[in-house]
């Protein structure tokens, strides 16, 4: 387990792009949005926009999730040699979540301010990101594992995972909106956690099955 994590950490440090690019894309798309629709700033649509952009950022990062290891043969070695490939998949999803989900706990509130959300809503945004993004990485990993074998899997990946992201989007944006309105956020918190837990239960097994299918494809 530790050797897996160490390797992921070394790769993350060397290929900083995996961390910087998602955040850069998020900032860029927020700016475009505000320029295109200035009156959305500090409107009740802001929470929804913020979450939609986080979703799209996650989608972009997913395509590369297994691609590098697939092309280099590292994925092959993992499935052949690892006594417990399940752990390797879980480590990979965890690292992916760190660079595209967990980081949103910090970046999200900053974007909230950019979008004119009230300052007291920022803790709610951070909480929503913390509870919601694991489901994105977990469910997204299933889609990524099945489409990694395709040369142009991007669109299919989006088609497969976007419907699965919908519940997280609804309750994530709902939580922020509830915080803005000052009402209790607990129902959304429970819902987001439930979705992430269900995703945690099915994602590793489904991802492993997906990777086995993709590896057999070439």
């Amino acid at each position: 387990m530790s050797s897996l994590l160490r390797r992921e950490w070394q790769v993350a440090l060397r290929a900083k792009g995996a961390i910087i690019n998602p955040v850069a894309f998020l900032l860029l798309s927020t700016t475009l949005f505000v320029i295109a629709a200035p009156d959305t700033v500090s409107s009740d649509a802001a929470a929804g926009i913020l979450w939609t952009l986080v979703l799209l950022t996650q989608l972009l990062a997913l395509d590369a999730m297994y691609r590098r290891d697939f092309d280099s043969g590292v994925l092959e070695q993992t499935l052949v040699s690892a006594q417990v490939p399940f752990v390797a998949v879980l480590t990979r999803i965890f690292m992916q979540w760190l660079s595209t989900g967990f980081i949103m706990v910090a970046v999200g509130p900053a974007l909230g301010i950019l979008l004119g959300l009230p300052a007291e809503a920022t803790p709610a945004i951070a909480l929503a990101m913390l509870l919601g993004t694991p489901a994105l990485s977990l469910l997204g990993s299933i889609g990524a594992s099945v489409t990694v074998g395709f040369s142009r899997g991007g669109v299919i990946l989006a088609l497969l995972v976007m419907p699965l992201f919908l519940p997280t989007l609804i309750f994530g944006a709902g939580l922020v909106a509830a915080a803005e309105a000052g009402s209790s956020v607990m129902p959304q918190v429970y819902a987001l956690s439930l979705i992430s837990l269900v995703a945690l239960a099915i994602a590793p097994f489904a991802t492993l099955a997906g990777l086995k299918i993709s590896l057999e494809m070439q």
Partner: protein
Amino acid sequence: MLTLEELVCERDGRELFAPVSIDVRAGDYVELTGANGAGKSTLLRTLAGLHSRYSGAFDSVDCLFQGHRLGLDGLLTPLENFAWFLGFEGRDADRERFLDALQRTGVLNKAYQPCSEMSAGQQRRVAMARWLLSSRSLWLLDEPLTALDASAQQVMAKIIVEHCQAGGAVVCATHSELPVAQKRLLKLEATQRTPDGSVHSGYRDFAKVQDE
């Protein structure tokens, strides 16, 4: 070490070669030959557990698989790759052994260089060094000679012979002969499956059972 009974691999619904049965014992070096597309790679991938469409049976101890893709992370140095790989066997990194292995395969000077900055031949030598470090006794090698110069081929032959003498076993798919003294030849023949039988992998056609 590895026994195959009437093993036939399938791809796109058709059978790749005539059923194969062999018993690989410790110390055996088996050279797997056959025309292009005869199914050598598919057979090795099946034995490694990466390919699931086959009929017949095989049982094997855990193996080390070396496919066309080397399985080296380009961003990491050979040492870091080895540390990661040995993690699967639950063994911790031992720098001295790593450096010895790299020296043995003639790429010691690349020990601290990311693999992506090496030539294909040098990367293969790094992969070869990894065989030495692995504790797996059964090696499945898929055309390991590609992109290797003459001296590297000599080194590989020596490594394989030593591994077999030490009680390991190697199944190597290759087009060009490997300079190894005693070897067992396994040639994949084209399938003579009678055209009428359709391919059912994984289940017996109940209707046929009734006819028998």
